[in-house]
C-alpha cells in the first residue's frame, strides 16, 4: 500500500507539474463554459423543460470532452515509460505489477475528476440565479457526478489498456480515440433504431451510453448502468495488468 501511494503521488505530480495537465484543464474549463453560455442563452426565460444537468449531457460538449480528453490523459501512462526506458527502472524495483496499474489508473481518474470541477462552479452559478426549483437539485447533481465518474473510469481504463499496448503515445491515443468514437457511434445508432427482439439490438441497447448518461443526469441511478460501467472498467484494468505482466512470459 505504501508503494501504491508513492506511485500515485509520482503519477499525479507528472500531471500537475507539467504544462499538459494545465492545458487540458484550461481547455475543458473553456468548453464547459462555452456549453453553459449556449445553454443559458438558448433558454431565455421560458420554463426549463428538464434539469440543466440533463441538457448539458444531451449537448455535444460533454461527449467531446470525454472522448477527446481521456486519450490525452491516458496515452502517456505506459507508452511514455516504455519509450523512455523508465519502465525498466520502474519494473526492476520491488513493485508489483498490480500496484503500477492501479496507481496509474487512479492518478488518471483523480486528474479527470479535478478537470471536471469547474462544472460544479457553472452549476452553482445557474442554481444561484435561477428561481426554477426543478432546474437543479442535489439528486441531479449527484447523479451527474456519478455518471461523469463512471464514464471516466470506462474510457480511462480503456486508455490504460491502449497505452500498455504500445510504446508510442500517438498510437495509444489513436487506439483509445477510435474506441471512444466507436462507442459514441454505436450509441448514436442505438438511439436512432428502436429496440427490437433481435439479440443484436438488445445488446446494443445495453451498450447505449447516451441513455445511461441521460438517466444519470435526471438523477436516476440505474444499477444496471453502474454495474455495466464498473465491470467493464475492471475488465479493461485486468487486461492492462495481463499486458504489463506479459513481458514475463513473452
Amino acid at each position: 500500500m505504501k508503494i501504491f501511494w508513492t506511485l500515485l503521488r509520482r503519477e499525479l505530480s507528472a500531471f500537475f507539474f507539467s504544462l499538459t495537465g494545465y492545458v487540458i484543464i484550461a481547455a475543458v474549463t473553456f468548453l464547459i463554459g462555452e456549453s453553459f453560455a449556449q445553454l443559458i442563452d438558448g433558454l431565455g426565460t421560458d420554463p426549463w423543460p428538464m434539469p440543466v444537468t440533463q441538457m448539458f449531457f444531451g449537448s455535444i460538449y460533454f461527449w467531446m470532452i470525454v472522448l477527446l480528453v481521456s486519450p490525452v490523459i491516458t496515452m502517456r501512462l505506459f507508452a511514455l515509460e516504455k519509450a523512455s526506458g523508465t519502465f525498466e527502472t520502474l519494473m526492476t524495483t520491488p513493485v508489483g505489477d498490480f500496484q503500477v496499474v492501479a496507481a496509474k489508473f487512479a492518478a488518471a481518474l483523480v486528474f479527470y475528476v479535478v478537470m471536471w470541477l469547474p462544472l460544479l462552479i457553472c452549476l452553482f452559478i445557474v442554481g444561484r440565479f435561477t428561481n426554477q426549483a426543478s432546474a437543479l437539485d442535489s439528486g441531479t447533481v449527484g447523479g451527474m457526478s456519478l455518471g461523469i465518474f463512471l464514464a471516466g473510469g470506462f474510457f480511462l481504463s480503456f486508455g490504460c489498456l491502449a497505452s500498455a499496448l504500445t510504446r508510442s503515445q500517438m498510437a495509444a491515443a489513436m487506439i483509445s480515440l477510435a474506441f471512444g468514437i466507436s462507442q459514441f457511434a454505436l450509441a448514436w445508432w442505438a438511439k436512432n433504431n428502436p429496440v427490437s427482439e433481435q439479440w443484436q439490438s438488445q445488446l446494443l441497447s445495453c451498450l447505449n451510453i447516451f441513455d445511461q448518461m441521460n438517466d444519470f443526469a435526471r438523477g436516476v441511478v440505474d444499477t444496471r448502468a453502474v454495474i455495466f460501467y464498473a465491470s467493464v472498467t475492471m475488465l479493461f484494468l485486468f487486461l492492462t495488468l495481463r499486458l504489463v505482466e506479459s513481458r514475463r512470459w513473452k
Partner: protein
Amino acid sequence: MIEVSNLTKRYAGRTAVSDISFAVARGEIVGLLGPNGAGKSTTMRVLSCFMPATSGTARVAGFDVFHQSAEVRRRIGYMPENNPLYPEMRVREYLKFRARLKGLGWKKSRERVTTVMEQCGLADVGRRVIGQLSKGYRQRVGLADALVHEPELIILDEPTIGLDPHQIRSVRQLIKSLAGNHTVLISTHILPEAEMMCSRMLIMFDGKILASDTPENLQRRMAGNSQIIAEIAAPAEALRECFSQIPEIELFDVSAGEGEFQRCALTPRDGLDLRPMIFALARDRGWVIRELTRHRHSLEDIYVQITRPDEEEENE
C-alpha cells in the same frame, strides 16, 4: 552472489544469449565486456528480473530471478543502458521516490538519499530538475538511484557511456569505491575501463562467453606466444642461420633496419622467453644489440582476437 547456468534468451528469430554459465562471488567487481550486440544488456535484463530467460536459470543471492523475482529485486540496484530518468522531477525528489519504491521507510529514505547524494557528488544539485542537468550529473543520479537502498548486487549497464574524460574518471572512482561492500556487475565495450575497474572480466561475443579471467591472467595467457623484437647489428644471412639452428624459435623474420642493424621478429615455441638466449647469442658473436623487447599483448589485442568475427580469421 550470481549463479547463471545454461542461460539462453531468444527474441523472435534471434538468439541474444546462448547457453551461458558464470558465477560471481560476493564483493567482486566483474566486467561484462563485448562489442555492441554481444548480449550484455540482455544478460543484465534477465538478472535484474525485467525479462525472463528462454531457458536456463539465474540466481541472485540464492534466489531465482524468475520464481523469486521480488526477493531478487529487493537486493539489486540496476541502472539500465542510457540511464532513463523522469526529466520533470527534481534530483532529491526523484531519489526519494526511488528509495520509497524500493521499500525504504520515510526516515530511512531521507537519510539514505542524503548519503548517496554526497557519495555521488550530487549535494549541490538536489533541487535542480533532472531534465536540465548535464549528462554527467544525470549519470550520477542513475548511480545514486542504484545505490540508494544499499543493494547487495549493483548492475550497471554501460555506466560511463557518453561522458567526458573527467566525468568518466569520477564515475570509475565511485564504482571502484564500491568494491568489498557490494558486488558489482558492469557492462562496457571500452576495454581500458574494464581493465581499471574490474577484478574479473567476462568477454562476451555473439551471445556466448568466450573468456573469463582476471585482466592479468588474460594478459598472461596471451603473453605465451608473444613475439620478441630484437635489433641487432649483424649480417642478415648470419642471423638467419643462427635463428634456424635454435630449436626454441618457432618462426623468425629478419628485415633490414636502420644502418647496419637488422630488425628481427622472433616467435618462441611453447611460450618461452627468448630474450636471455638472444642476448647470449649476441654476446658470444660480439654483435651489438640496440633493442630487445618482448611485445606484450595489451588487453586490446586479446579482446580483438577473441571477439573477431569469423570471416576475418578466415581471410588471414
